[in-house]
Structures are given as C-alpha cells and as structure tokens.
C-alpha cells in the first residue's frame, strides 16, 4: 500500500492565539514494501506527520493518498475506519495503552473493534502473541504483571493483530536494554520479510536507520529537508552537520579513517560495521597487491 502526501499543511489550534504551524507543504511518497525512516529533531514535525498516516490528524490543506483512499480536510471520521485497520501504529512507550484483564484479551481488542467475533479475535491474539515471542505461560496473566520488555511486546502484538499492511513505529525501542532493542528491531525486520509489510520508523538512532531503512525522510521545523536512499543521505556529512544530524557510527568511523590515511578511500559509504569490514578488507587486499 503506497502512501503519498501532496502539499500537506498542518496547523495546531488554528485561529486561536496559540496557533502554531507544524507541517509546511509536505510532498513525499512512501513506496509499498519500503522500510522508510523518518528522522529529525524534537519539534521537527515527525509525530505530526505520523498522526496523518492513519487519519488521527487531517491536513489543513493538501491531501494524502493511502492505497485507494484520499484524506483531505473534509474527510469524515467515519470514513477512516478501514484506513486505521490497514495502517497500524505502534506509539512511543506503547505499553501505556494496555488495559485488559489478560494479555490475550488485550491483543484481541483491536480485531474485535474491527468486527471479528470474540472467538476469532482470541485466535488471532494467540497467533500474534507467538509471533512476538511471548512465552505461553503469560497469555492469561494480567499485562500489568509482566516485565517492561514483555509489556512492550504485548502492545506491539495488539497492533499487529489488526493485520495491517503498513506498520508505523514511533521510537519502538525507547527505554529497552540493548538486548531487548536488538530483539525487537530484528523482529520487525523478520515481520517485514514474512508478511510483506511496509514499515515506517520514526527514530533518533541513526545506526538503526543505516541498518534497516531503504528510504529516509528528513524533517526540520515542519519542512521536508530530504527524501532519499540512506547511502545518499549519509554520504554528505557536511550537510548533516549543518542540520545537526548524526552519522551512523560505521560511517563516522570511515570518515575518520579517511582523514588519517588517503589509502582508505571508500567507493560506497559504509553504513554498518559489516559493510565497513568488507570494504576495509578489499582495501587491505588492494594495498597488498600494489606492494607485490
């Protein structure tokens, strides 16, 4: 399901003294099946943009086309039901949305809202709980008795239970420990491959952008600054610096290496330590051959 923004503007508390514009003329495309990262500082308009993806906010002007649905300022809330089913959103600290008596019931909440029977919904919930690696013994426990990491998984399963085609993730690993972080990010990667999801990731972690994304959107103060492949975005370190954006660690390391020795010339910007290692070995072998 592809997503297209056309000249989207959004203004909070319009026509009051507290009026404040959060998005300016945003035009962009998020292709079907892509892993798109949205980056930018606090206040750049990331979360406002995110809330447009499933109709929680409607543009003040311009339009958004998601699949075969168009959203403008005139779209009625009633027409947004199917959209919300197709676009699942995992908000920041999603465990704050848990409320049911048991883990399974909570996961079954969304499918029930979208018309599944109790039986069907619980069956879906069971599948989703397994999908996010929750151990079976917690299925009928209260979600509030679980550890932070497990609560996070329950909340994610609760969104996956709608079987969305697009999955929007707002800082999904915030507050987790390193192991939990890697597990959750790998889980999304697997889901994307198995279920052909389109993933949209809002994050500050440039290493995650470098490792997982194939499309990057950069926002600054409500304006679209760039929309390109990660290799392109991270190749211009001067531009990134001007906009106070960090480089992925591997790219930064490669930069420093290049500064020290001209022999380290990278044909392609390395984004992860694996890519960097492979390129380094090529370099080393070339130097070796030249010497011989």
């Amino acid at each position, binding site marked *: 399901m592809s997503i297209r923004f056309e000249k989207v503007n959004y203004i909070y508390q319009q026509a009051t003294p507290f009026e404040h514009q959060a998005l300016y003329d945003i035009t962009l495309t998020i292709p079907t099946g892509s892993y798109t990262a949205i980056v930018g500082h606090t206040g750049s308009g990331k979360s406002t943009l995110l809330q447009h993806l499933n109709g929680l906010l409607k543009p003040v002007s311009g339009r958004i086309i998601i699949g075969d649905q168009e959203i403008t300022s005139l779209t009625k809330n009633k027409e947004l039901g199917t959209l919300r089913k197709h676009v699942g959103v995992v908000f920041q600290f999603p465990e704050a949305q848990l409320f049911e008596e048991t883990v399974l019931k909570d996961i079954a909440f969304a499918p029930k809202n979208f018309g599944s029977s109790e039986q069907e919904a619980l069956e879906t919930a069971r599948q989703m709980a397994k999908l996010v690696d929750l151990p079976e013994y917690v299925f009928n426990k209260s979600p509030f008795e679980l550890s932070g990491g497990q609560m996070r998984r329950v909340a994610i399963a609760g969104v996956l239970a709608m079987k969305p085609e697009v999955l929007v993730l707002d800082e999904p690993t915030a507050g987790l*420990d390193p192991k939990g972080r890697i597990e959750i990010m790998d889980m999304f990667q697997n889901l994307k491959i198995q279920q052909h999801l389109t993933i949209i990731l809002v994050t500050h972690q440039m290493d995650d952008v470098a490792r997982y994304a194939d499309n990057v959107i950069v926002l600054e103060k409500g304006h679209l600054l760039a929309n390109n492949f990660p290799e392109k975005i991270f190749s211009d370190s001067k531009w990134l610096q001007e906009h106070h954006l960090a480089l992925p660690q591997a790219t930064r390391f490669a930069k420093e290496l290049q500064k020290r020795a001209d022999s380290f010339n990278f044909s392609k910007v390395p984004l992860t330590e694996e890519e960097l290692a492979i390129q380094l070995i090529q370099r080393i072998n070339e130097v070796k051959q030249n010497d011989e």
Partner: protein
Amino acid sequence: MQNVIEISDLSFRYPQQTDDLFAHIDLTVGKGEWVALIGHNGSGKSTIARLIDGLLVPNKGTIKVCGLQVNEKNVWQVRKKVGMVFQNPDNQFVGANVEEDVAFGLENQGIARSQMQLRVKKALKKVSMWEFAKHEPANLSGGQKQRVALAGIIAMKPEILILDEATSMLDPEGKKDVIQIIQELNQQENFTVISITHDIDEAALAGRVVVLNDGKILQDATPKKVFSRGEKLLSVGLDVPFSEKLKTALKKEGIQVPENYLTKKGMVDWLCQYVSKK
C-alpha cells in the same frame, strides 16, 4: 583515596518475590570517582541506587555513605550527601516552575529564603537554565527538565551524584547536554558520580565499570578491561563500543585483530599501521 560508599555483603529481595535479586554484594566507591553500573533490565542496578539512598531497606548487609551507616536514624543525613536523578524527566519535577523545582530540596532543609535565592540562581546558571527560571515544566524539553533536576542537586551541595538511567528518555541533544554537565561536575567540583546506564558510550566516560548480572558483580574494572571482553558483554545482554563491533566483524572475515580493547582512535591507528605493514 577516601571511600564515600562502602557496601558489604548486601542482599536484597522484593517482598513479593521468592528469590534474591542479588546476594552478598561488596562494592566501594572512592571520593571523586565516576563509576558506571551496567546490566540488563531487571539486574538490580536501580535497586542498588535506591538502597544507597535509603529509599529501600536491605535484607542483609550494610551500606555506609561518607562514613554514615544507612539506617533509619541516619537516613536524612545520608540523603543530604546523595543527589539522585531518575529516568523519567516528568516524574521528578515537583515545582510549579523551574526555579521552584530547584528550590524544593532547599525548602525541605529549612534554608532561609535569601540563601535559597542565591543558591538557586547559581545552580541554574551552572546548567545554563537561568533564563528559563520562570518557565513551567510543560514548556520544557526532556533534556531541559533533566538539567533542572541536576540544578536541584547542585543547589543541595551533596557529595555523590547518582544517575538512574537519567539520559535514557532524552533525544541525542538532550543527552549530550546532560552528560557534559556531569563531566564538569565530576572533574571541576570533584563530585562522585555513579551512573546507571545502557548507553555504552556514556559508560566509557567512567573511570570504572561495574557489570551486574544474575545477582552478582560479574566484573569491576576499567572500561578498557571490561570492553575487551566484548563477547561476554553481548552474552549478558549488553552493548559494546563500536570499535569492538568492528573488530568482531573483521575477525569474522578472517583478519587477525588485537585482543585488547581499542578506543575508536586506537582502532584507526591500528588499521593504518596494519595497512602500511603489508
């Protein structure tokens, strides 16, 4: 070096649990040290911090803070020596605005108002938040709120600063600001710092890293020593610095890498040397 924290044979268990969270822990921290406490979620790092401040009571063992044993009698004295910054910036902001929040601890000590005004101003200037003195918390970023929390501690003039994942909910800029202030406090004002963190780059700033796992201290050494056992850290669910990650990736491709831990700069040096040697 004088010890400001002495923990001996410490055991703790939460009332509703059957197993000890940790048992027989010994740990001393010297004045002016910066100790990073790392371990996966649920390893008991935060619990240790709360025990030091007398917010929880141990099942066994003793804790001494600046020579004072932490017990019911001394707890208020101990809390004067220890300042804590917690994880969630919103949930520790008591005052109606920035200056009042900084004054909260001073009010509790019954310090005269004229004295409070001086200390609040000085502390807020130290964290570059004086111009925000009248701002309400709702209009501040997470990083700014944590800086206010730090000012609240600076104003109290404690000996020890405990950061309980204080930067984990901040964006990269907020993180940078907070860490910079902590470095200044540690280096210029000789604050003893205990930072509980998952951020490996933050832990690398410490003079000592203590790894907590399965209710025991797995390792207690310099960052250099601790990080050189990268695989071990990964196996207990922790992160390793980037240079270690790169070393692992190179090793996988069949390159002979040095055993000891290298900083990023060290790694660059080594690679340059490696190439020129060939």
